């Protein structure tokens, strides 16, 4: 137990939490936008994975990390649009379409990786670029806070800015109002002249953009290579984080941090004498527990409202 506390209360651990939260946070914000528009984007996992590979390949071939990032974001957005086309125009059940996209991404990335790097496991033969880390001036000299918050990959800061951006988009812009209206009641939104399909297209595209950022971070920040199925369920964890964050930007941010904490804990505990299998289980168990807590609160609220209605 002393060991455990010694592990958690260090600045390196605090730094690690932010580091592993970043991809989950991006994807969770993606889940948030689509959820607000009333569409479930289960393809986040595949979008991240595809974007991670695209980022590596493009940055290796152009020699520019920025171009790699742009390509990764574009890939994510395009996949969002494809999902939108199938679910909104062709009326494919969006969960099935999402499953299909995830399956295609997990196999397709291996297929393309082999063509580009002649390897089915890792992209180490490609000379891909990494996005820069940022030292925050002045801030990084403050003890404790400096080592935790400074020196992260630029996308980690972007992810925190994205929380604010998503908040402003959803609650302070006309588009955000439309997105929420469509998610709340699409028939009502339709009756006042909002194009439901158009709004959902935009929401899914933005969702893909955010997943693309998360994917780019995975292969061009978190690590400097692509490996098969490297997202390891983060897209799904993000969906849970969003649900548990009560579908608000701040809540999503906090729950993403919680999962980041669990993830970082499982990384650092590997040095202690706990069976590795249990340690690796932590983020997933935390997700289920979080989901239960969220769901119980939600149902008790509904029950309370019902009781009050009766009284």
């Amino acid at each position, binding site marked *: 137990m002393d060991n455990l506390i010694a592990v958690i209360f260090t600045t390196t651990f605090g730094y690690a939490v932010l580091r592993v939260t970043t991809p989950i946070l991006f994807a969770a914000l993606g889940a948030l936008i689509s959820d607000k528009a009333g569409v479930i984007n289960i393809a986040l996992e595949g979008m991240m994975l595809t974007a991670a590979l695209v980022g590596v390949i493009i940055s290796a071939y152009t020699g520019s990390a920025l171009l790699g990032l742009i390509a990764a974001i574009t890939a994510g957005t395009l996949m969002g649009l494809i999902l939108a086309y199938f679910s909104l125009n*062709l009326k494919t059940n969006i969960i099935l379409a999402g499953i299909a996209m995830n399956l295609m991404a997990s196999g397709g990335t*291996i297929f393309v990786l082999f063509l580009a790097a002649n390897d089915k496991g890792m992209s180490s033969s490609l000379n891909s670029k990494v996005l820069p880390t940022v030292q925050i001036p002045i801030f990084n000299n403050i003890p404790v806070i400096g080592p935790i918050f400074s020196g992260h990959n630029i996308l980690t800061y972007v992810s925190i800015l994205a929380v604010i951006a998503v908040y402003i988009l959803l609650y302070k812009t006309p588009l955000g109002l439309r997105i929420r209206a469509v998610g709340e009641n699409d028939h009502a939104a339709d009756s006042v002249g909002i194009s439901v399909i158009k709004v959902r297209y935009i929401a899914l595209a933005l969702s893909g953009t955010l997943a693309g950022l998360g994917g780019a971070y995975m292969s061009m920040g978190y690590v400097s290579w692509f490996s098969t199925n490297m997202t390891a369920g983060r897209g799904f964890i993000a969906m849970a984080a969003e649900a548990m964050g009560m579908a608000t930007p701040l809540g999503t941010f906090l729950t993403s941090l919680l999962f980041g904490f669990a993830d970082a804990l499982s990384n650092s505990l590997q040095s202690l004498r706990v069976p590795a299998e249990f340690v690796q289980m932590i983020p997933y168990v935390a997700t289920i527990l979080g989901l239960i807590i969220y769901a119980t609160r939600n149902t008790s609220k509904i029950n309370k409202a019902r009781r009050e209605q009766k009284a």
Partner: protein
Amino acid sequence: MRKEAFFEIIRTLVAILVALLLAFILVLSVSKEPWKALSSFLTGPLSTPRHFGNVVEMTIPLMFTSLAVCVMFQAKQFNLGTTGSFFIGAVAATIVAINIKLPIIIHPAAAILFGGIAGSLVGTIPAILKSRWNASELVSSLMLNYIMLFLGLFIINFYLRDVNAGAMVSYKLEQASLLPKLIPKTRIHFGLILALLMVAITYLFLYRTKWGYALRITGQNIKFAEYSGINTLAVILYSQIIGGFIAGIGGATELLGMYTRFQWQSLPGYGWDGVIVAILARNNPLYVPIAAFFLAYLRIGADIMSRMTDVQSEVVTVIQGIMIMLIAAERFLSVWRHRMIVKGAKQSISIEGESVNG
């Protein structure tokens, strides 16, 4: 009604053709020997009895997981925990197959039953969360898959691992617990009969029992089901428990039929494949064997192609993805369907009109 069914078959076939065509274009554009690649892909599984045997062997687990998915999807429960149930079912069967000594026939039966129970427990958790607190079964079942993976690996690595084996594998399974092989020169095992039996049972359950009827009605329209007095909470529970049970049996059968030790270190993807097969079969158990055979054929064909030529077997995932997207797309070819319905309606109107006039 007949015409609708006919239309669905045509639509499925067109979707498969489109997917295959795109895959062929992909092969043509990346391969230096495209014709060899295509022919080994399409005819490879038929080339030797062993290869054809591989197809049938793979059909067995696919049938189990897709039956599990059929039951849950018919109730509109998007529980994706089939993968976890399948895995933990195999782990549970390993425990029985190593630790207990029983006579033949009884031993595999006990192991498979225990696997089924373990699998159904995995199905129960998302079901309870959904029925009690309305928590999304989709997310909780996805998380459970990972938990089951690590739980299973813990059991195998800490209690059943054979340290002398060199690799991370369990002790040898008791000889009496293994399922007998059916056809010499292949590894086709008794699980095939079990799987076909399961197809029949699942079909009868869904279409010939009260529970199955309640399950299907709930899936089609949960509000209607509630108003007509069906206990939809119970349906949500038992559909996922049964689904988990079938998947668990599948995992146990696969282990006892194909292996002599437990040797998986990651989740075998049969749960996701089950979704593909179930969609191809329109969630109808009767079509599951055909759809499972078809997918297994594609997989083995792709494997043979990647061994013989420079095209990687993952090309098959592109085919799968496009197939699912197109088949699940209600609007795909809907213009044609619409025309057919209008024509039928006009015909019946004119017939009625004539009978009134005459």
